[in-house]
């Protein structure tokens, strides 16, 4: 039909390169923003998250990753090259969700503009052949054409339709909120991602074990472990110090943990802190910072007395719980400065049982409550290697110094509170008691309120999109060829619901009743009631 403007045979000059590139880009853009692409990307996103739950992740547990490396020495480095231990911060995971969000924005923005236009525009005129629509039908009424349409218009307006009338026909629409909900949902997804990203960039968190009577201040040097976003400047940390006064654990009869609470004081450095009690599920929320109680355990206290009388008394050190039902805990105490010089340092490694039971000289714990605290310790003397430049865990000794013979086992003992053991050189080591420690965490996430608001608006949009119906109703009147009345042709179009037929039937029934109510009664209806 359309004949080429150009005479055949004369080859058109190829489009200029920029145009071609633009065309290509446009094609790619269209493909990226197609709904089909979105589905594939959604699937890819789900798939990409899978290894993050099957392999240990650094963000969750550095220990488990190290263990995996130890168990799979040849495989692990390969997996690591593909970021499989950091799935959720990997470039390929980011690539999938960024593509998805670009696709989403590319689809939703034009729809949003179109929707704004549709909100202002009148409902479209009625199609020519109303009876071809799946939900349609005729009603007859003795009313005049204009009157009949008046009735229809009134009924539709009561049902909150927007109605336009033209000569002899009417179109009405409602349910614009469905599309609004759809847009709100999809835009909320974008907002949520932005909030998440902001929180990651400007947020930080630090964890520390604090024994009763001790405290910490909010600075990265003090934390046992911390994670900070790339845009966090350590000068920006809230000046805040926290002291732990008391930790309390309560148990049910069957030893299920019932509650953990920590009485803390908090305030700016140098201030007398304000007291507050935090617990599991009940953090302290300050402006922008939150302080959590994430765990607890025991810090046995020891006294060490040298034969010459010099003593270190009541040093306490947190022992890490190995078993959450009995709180049997392991830890180490390192005393590099007993005064004897570099090769006369002292350390002990041990197991703490809040309720100890010794069988065959082996100490186990049988109860998480401190009913009969005991420690089993192995004591070493020699060089600890603390200044060797290699970082070591505070919860265990450096095994390589023991292997090399620089740190020598000199005694082992099971001690109850008040008991002591004497080393070959006359030094005594005594268990003097225990304190409880709390694992505290300070978190700062400036994005989280934003994420919460986005999540709520996402859910609102979702409900609107799924529950509301977009409905158009058309009506046209014509004179009834069979009589003096009017034939009213009705039709409706519904989007977003499979149940349109019964609804249309209900609407037509209502209109029929409304028309009948206005119609001049063909026969007087006032028959006597009491008969």
């Amino acid at each position, binding site marked *: 039909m359309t004949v080429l403007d150009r005479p055949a045979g004369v080859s058109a000059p190829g489009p200029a390169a920029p145009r071609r590139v633009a065309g290509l880009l446009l094609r790619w853009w269209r493909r990226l923003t197609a*709904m*089909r692409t*979105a*589905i594939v990307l*959604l*699937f890819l*996103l*789900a798939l990409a*998250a*899978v290894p*993050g*739950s*099957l392999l240990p*992740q650094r*963000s*969750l547990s550095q220990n488990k990753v190290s263990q995996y490396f130890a168990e799979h020495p040849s495989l692990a480095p390969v997996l690591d090259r593909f970021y499989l231990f950091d*799935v*959720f911060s990997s470039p390929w995971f980011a690539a999938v969700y960024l593509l998805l969000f670009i696709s989403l924005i590319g689809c939703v923005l034009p729809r949003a503009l179109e929707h704004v236009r549709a909100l202002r525009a009148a409902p479209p005129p009625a199609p020519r052949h109303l*009876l071809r629509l*799946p*939900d349609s*039908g*005729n*009603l007859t009424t003795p009313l005049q054409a204009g009157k009949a349409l008046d009735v229809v218009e009134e009924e539709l307006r009561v049902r909150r339709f927007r109605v336009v009338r033209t000569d002899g026909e009417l179109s009405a629409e409602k349910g614009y909120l469905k599309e609004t909900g759809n847009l709100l949902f999809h835009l909320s997804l974008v907002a949520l991602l932005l909030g*998440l990203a902001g929180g990651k960039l400007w947020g930080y*968190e630090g964890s520390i074990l604090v024994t009763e009577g001790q405290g910490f201040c909010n600075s990265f040097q003090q934390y046992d472990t911390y994670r900070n976003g790339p845009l966090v400047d350590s000068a920006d940390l809230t000046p805040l110090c926290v002291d732990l006064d008391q930790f309390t654990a309560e148990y*049910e009869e*069957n030893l*299920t*943990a*019932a*509650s*953990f609470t920590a009485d803390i004081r908090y305030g700016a450095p140098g201030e007398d802190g304000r007291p507050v009690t935090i*617990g*599991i*599920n*009940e*953090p302290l929320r300050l402006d922008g910072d*939150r302080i*959590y109680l*994430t765990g607890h355990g025991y810090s046995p206290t020891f006294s060490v007395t040298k034969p010459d009388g010099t003593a270190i008394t009541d040093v306490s050190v947190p022992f890490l719980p190995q078993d959450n039902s009995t709180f049997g805990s392991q830890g180490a105490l390192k005393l590099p400065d007993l005064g004897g010089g570099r090769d006369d340092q002292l350390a002990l490694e041990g197991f703490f049982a809040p309720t100890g039971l010794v069988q065959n000289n082996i100490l186990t714990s049988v109860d998480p409550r401190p009913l009969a605290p005991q420690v089993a310790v192995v004591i070493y003397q020699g060089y600890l290697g603390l200044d060797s430049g290699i970082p070591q865990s505070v919860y265990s000794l450096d095994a390589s110094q023991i292997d090399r013979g620089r740190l020598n086992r000199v005694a082992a003992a099971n001690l109850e509170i008040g008991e002591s053991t004497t080393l070959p050189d006359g030094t005594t080591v005594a268990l003097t008691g225990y304190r409880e420690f709390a694992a505290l*965490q300070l*978190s700062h*996430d400036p994005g989280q309120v934003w*994420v*919460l608001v986005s*999540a*709520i608006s*996402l*859910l609102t949009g*979702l409900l609107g999109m*799924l529950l509301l119906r977009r409905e158009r109703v058309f009506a046209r009147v014509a004179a009834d060829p069979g009589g003096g009345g009017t034939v009213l042709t*009705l039709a409706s179009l519904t989007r977003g619901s*499979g149940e*349109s*037929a*019964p609804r*249309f*039937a209900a609407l*037509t029934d209502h209109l029929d009743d409304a028309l009948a109510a206005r119609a001049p009664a063909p026969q007087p209806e006032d028959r006597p009631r009491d008969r």
Partner: protein
Amino acid sequence: MTADSLASLSDSLFSITVALYSLAVVAFCAQLAFGRRPVRSPELVGAGAAGATTEVPPVETPPADDARGRRWGLVAMGLTVLGVLAHTGVLVFRGLATDRLPWGNMYEFATATVLVAVVAYAVLAVRAPGLRHLGLFVLAPVVLALVLIGLFLYADAGPLVAALRSYWLAIHVTTAIIGFGIFFVSGIASILFLVRSRYEARVADGEAPGSGIVAKLPAAAALDRVAHRTAVFGFPIWTFAVIAGAIWAEAAWGRFWGWDPKETWAFIAWVVYAAYLHARTTAGWRGRPAAWVNVVGLAVMIFNLLFVNMVSTGLHSYAGV
């Protein structure tokens, strides 16, 4: 009654529930065996071809069973309802025995999820009698699931650990259970859709209509619609459950989202169901591919319950097996 006798009453009701549902399965089988095969079931295909009249046929009428089949159908529904009552009792008495919401461990959570699935089916069956024929396919997996739950997940009634003592347990876990139970029914409808639509395609190719169970299933279009409607109902609930979980995690674990295995799989399930809802409205994905997405969604939900609680260790693990 003492806590112990309440707890053992709950355990007895668990066995009674399994027995009642098993009898219901037998009755549903009898209904399918004796019920006359509907000649065709156009009444189940989407209504709407109403032509020029305003008369609209009822959307769903039951296939024409003969009297014997109908009687068996009623017996099956009756047994199902009795089963639901006993099943509710399992949870109520557990709750009374422990003085807390009865979904504090995996046994209770799974039992409650299965109850929601049966209730969702019963509601569908009451509203659209044509869907009663799904009963066998809902209740047979339900019985299997309950037996496995009783064998492998059973936990004695006991108090909650401190971490679970929060009103968010009521909000987050309850909505997760409801969402899961509804997705369960949705997934089964999609599986049946896949089976039935293949059968319908074969019949359309001229093969003689069979007389087996597939021939007695509701029409593929009706199954697809049930699957979609239930998923549409379940999706916002699941979305809410995930959001509530994040809010709880913020209070309990110090961050609202940390890609803990349970969180990761909840996210995967959410994305898969979002993909299903999209697939239903996207050319090239409608019909069988979309139904497969829904089936994958159900598989992810079940994996999240079983694998993540029992095999991997994460912060959710204290829910106890």
